[in-house]
């Protein structure tokens, strides 16, 4: 086609103009929103930071929340806080997705129908309290935690109602507390000064990730490896049946049979004793290393070599965790590991993250806690007329064979308090929407040797609301106080009408209270770095208050001292029921015990070892995979005496041949749009009660592994190439 110059220019202008006009977008409509209420100190579009305490676990990390136009945007750790030193874990960061979760309850559910009548709720709860008080023992509360002022309130009201409280959490710390009671006289949790050690022997604990001080221990571990005042990098050796995050960071992993971590400590203690260390129990030294080797699967010379290295260490340390406490012999495991510390000359230290504050008119902490075993037994006998489930999910956490659904359904009054609908709330007469810690007042009182001087101190961590509360929900503590008020003076005497008033009552001095709001805690440090929190947003009308007066932590007491001291005079082997490999349901790094499964950030967080996201998987030992010709992604079934579970196989070189492992957290069927897939390993566990505690021995089930056939897709980050069809990306 011949084009003249004139035509060329004409074409260019026309097409250029067409493109230019086509490229002009229609600007979207912009709205300028007048907020309903705006405090004077808040500038539109600019950030304010509020100090508070994260309540995702018992760690009690001090955090500062960035709030813009009334919306919480980001958490940062408070650098001066003696527990977390400015760090926040993934669980803490993801808690914004609990606050703004689209599946949050926005109304009361009465017989599963929406209602906004809070007065009816308070009257109903009050009548149940009064009925329970006149028939002591007919009410049960199932809670996920008892701590601080809200915990103290729960204990006080339960006592007034003659009710018992069962604390249900995975993984339970009762075994560890029981062992510590035997060693120190206090049923607290062991504290490990990892940062001061130069040689740590870890017995399966995942202290970097789970347990009660993950962020603190992660900081401490950093100091252990690269601290400034060290002459050499610390050495970490782990005995464990499975490589968890902490074990994967070790310099050496020594696989042991599940449940025999205490036996490994026994072997090490015997080897040390043979090298001249005094103080090891006589009954222990009578057991030969060969016998111990048969139980643990660890060669005797490993104990001997490790014992020699420990003798050369200046500050050795043995670490146990809730993982050791999950077996039928959990108490014994923990006690042996702590005895090893005593043998090494390491003082057994403890801390308590769940102290209860003292409420007005309260004298002492009543003994209201019962074990899961006792609760189930009374359930089965039909003892309970009213059962309240407070922010936990027993139908998900308990093995199916216990038939929580059947037991709960037979109870006359079933009340669930939760911010989200869950499997347990589906069974309830009343589902009462509660709030997240971003919206409510509360606290956490922790006692332990956290400061630089290792002196035991009590830290009061204040939790203050940083955003307005979600309409249609109320704080758990405030609901209980209103129920108490409606129930009459026998319940409400000397109690105010809000948790805010209760918390404030610990600090009657206004300038001390202002200081508390500023830093959300009582610490040793005398000053606060203002610039960190306010940047250049200092409002001239509201300058930072002068830190006039430090507050002292209120006193607190533990709710766990009722636990019996164990009597240990012989070695105890773990018990497993069923056939096949030992099933280890492990605390998921992303989903925890399943409560974070409704947070997409946590679903997409790759597992640190397998990098799997958005699904469960079944870790199988390499030897078994070779024998059964199982490849990654093959669908397999685990069959226990109590049920079966299917899923994609993940052949793992980091697992003892006697074990299989499945992460806990998936397998919800009523927990929102993000948590509707996978399977729950807790459902197929045998309900075995732990010796000496009455808690569930979570790791006591054997399973047979069967090939189902076919492949299941796992989204992983370690072999992305293989996620594509092979013909698309031929290798």
């Amino acid at each position: 086609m011949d084009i003249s110059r004139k035509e060329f220019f004409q074409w260019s202008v026309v097409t250029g103009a067409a493109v230019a006009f086509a490229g002009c977008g229609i600007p979207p409509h912009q709205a300028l929103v007048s907020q309903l209420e705006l405090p004077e100190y808040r500038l539109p579009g600019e950030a304010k930071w509020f100090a508070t305490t994260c309540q995702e676990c018992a760690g009690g990390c001090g955090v500062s929340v960035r709030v813009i136009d009334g919306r919480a945007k980001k958490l940062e750790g408070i650098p001066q806080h003696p527990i977390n030193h400015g760090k926040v874990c993934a669980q803490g960061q993801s808690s914004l997705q609990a606050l703004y979760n689209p599946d949050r309850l926005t109304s009361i559910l009465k017989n599963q129908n929406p209602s906004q009548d809070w007065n009816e709720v308070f009257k109903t709860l009050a009548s149940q309290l009064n009925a329970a008080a006149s028939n002591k023992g007919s009410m049960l509360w199932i809670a996920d935690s008892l701590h601080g002022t809200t915990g103290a309130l729960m204990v006080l009201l339960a006592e007034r109602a003659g009710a018992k409280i069962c604390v249900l959490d995975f993984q339970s710390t009762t075994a560890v507390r029981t062992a510590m009671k035997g060693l120190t006289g206090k049923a607290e949790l062991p504290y490990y000064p990892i940062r001061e050690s130069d040689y740590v022997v870890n017995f399966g604990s995942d202290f970097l990730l789970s347990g009660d001080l993950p962020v603190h221990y992660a900081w401490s571990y950093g100091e252990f490896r690269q601290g400034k005042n060290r002459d050499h990098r610390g050495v970490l050796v782990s005995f464990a049946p499975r490589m968890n995050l902490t074990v994967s960071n070790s310099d050496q992993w020594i696989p042991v049979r599940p449940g025999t971590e205490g036996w490994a400590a026994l072997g090490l203690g015997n080897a040390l004793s043979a090298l001249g260390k005094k103080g090891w129990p006589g009954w222990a030294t009578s057991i030969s290393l060969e016998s111990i080797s048969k139980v643990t699967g660890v060669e005797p010379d490993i104990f001997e070599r490790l014992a020699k290295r420990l003798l050369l260490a200046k500050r050795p340390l043995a670490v146990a965790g809730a993982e050791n406490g999950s077996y039928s012999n959990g108490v014994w495991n923990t006690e042996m590991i702590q005895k090893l510390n005593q043998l090494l000359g390491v003082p057994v230290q403890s801390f308590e993250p769940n102290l209860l504050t003292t409420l007005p008119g309260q004298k002492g902490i009543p003994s209201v806690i019962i074990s899961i075993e006792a609760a189930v037994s009374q359930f089965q006998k039909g003892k309970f007329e009213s059962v309240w489930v407070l922010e936990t999910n027993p139908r998900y956490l308990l093995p199916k064979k216990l038939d929580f659904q059947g037991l709960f359904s037979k109870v006359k009054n079933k009340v669930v308090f939760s911010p989200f609908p869950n499997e347990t709330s589906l069974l309830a007469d009343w589902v009462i929407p509660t709030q997240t810690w971003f919206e409510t007042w509360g606290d956490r009182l922790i006692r332990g040797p956290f400061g630089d001087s290792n002196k035991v101190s009590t830290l009061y961590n204040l939790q203050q609301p940083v955003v307005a509360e979600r309409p249609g929900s109320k704080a758990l503590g405030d609901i209980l106080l209103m129920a108490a008020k409606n129930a009459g003076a026998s319940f409400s005497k000397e109690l105010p009408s809000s948790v805010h008033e209760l918390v404030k009552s610990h600090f009657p001095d206004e300038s001390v209270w202002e200081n508390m709001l500023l830093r959300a805690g009582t610490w040793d440090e005398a000053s606060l770095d203002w610039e960190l929190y306010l940047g250049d947003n200092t409002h001239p009308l509201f300058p930072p208050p002068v830190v006039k007066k430090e507050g002292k932590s209120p006193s607190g007491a533990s709710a766990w001292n009722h636990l019996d001291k164990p009597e240990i005079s012989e070695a105890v082997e773990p018990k497993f029921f069923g056939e096949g490999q030992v099933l280890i349901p492990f605390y998921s790094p992303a989903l925890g015990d399943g409560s974070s499964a409704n947070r997409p950030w946590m679903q997409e967080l790759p597992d640190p070892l397998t990098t799997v996201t958005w699904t469960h998987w079944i870790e199988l030992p390499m030897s078994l995979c070779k024998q059964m010709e199982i490849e990654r992604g093959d669908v397999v079934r685990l069959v226990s005496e109590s049920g079966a579970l299917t899923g994609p196989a993940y052949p793992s070189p980091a697992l003892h041949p006697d074990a299989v492992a499945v992460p806990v957290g998936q397998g919800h069927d009523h927990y929102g749009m993000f948590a509707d897939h996978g399977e729950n390993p807790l459902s197929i566990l045998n309900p075995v009660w732990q010796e000496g505690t009455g808690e569930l021995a979570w790791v006591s089930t054997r399973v047979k592994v069967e090939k189902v056939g076919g492949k299941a897709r796992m989204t992983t980050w370690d072999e992305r190439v293989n996620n594509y069809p092979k013909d698309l990306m031929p290798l």
Partner: protein
Amino acid sequence: MSFEQKLLKTIRALILIGAIFGAICLWVVQWWLTHPKKQPIAFSHKIHVGQRQISCFFCHTGVEHGDIAGVPSVQDCMQCHQVVANEQVVANERPEIQKLTGYWERKQPIEWFKVYKVPKHVHFSHKVHIAFLAKRNPDALKDPGKFICAQCHGDVSQMSTIAAPVGTVMLLTGNANPNTSMGFCVDCHHANGGPMDCTACHR
């Protein structure tokens, strides 16, 4: 003229017509979008600023200390209107104030139509400009509406409805308000010794 030539001529004509038609449509649509719309409540600055002499800073509290001037919260409006003209509202008069109380009772924020828009690729801070104008003329703070805010927003005390002056539609940004155009800003910076480098505003 061959068939080929006729075809090319026809196609060219169609493209030209289409381009002109498209340009007209976009121009009209953009003008329509940037023309002042009916606000959810017919708030009158003429009454509040002109007659009642309420300072701009009283409602737009963010302007002295922050980047964004902001609009008052519903609670701020109700602080006066729970008393001012309340009897008339109760008597079912003053429909616009009734709308305000309706928002308050329903606990509903008000979505105003935004008149003054700065494109997203521009950083503008009210605080800096207020401080400059106040420093240049300390008496300006006594009547900011006249001496400070009017520099860009015009004499708001005479406006029943806030309307940005509509000029040539800026095709790339959809901005029709010359007072928020780059030329306006640059002219003022140039005249008053303000920063002239690109990163002063584009960051």
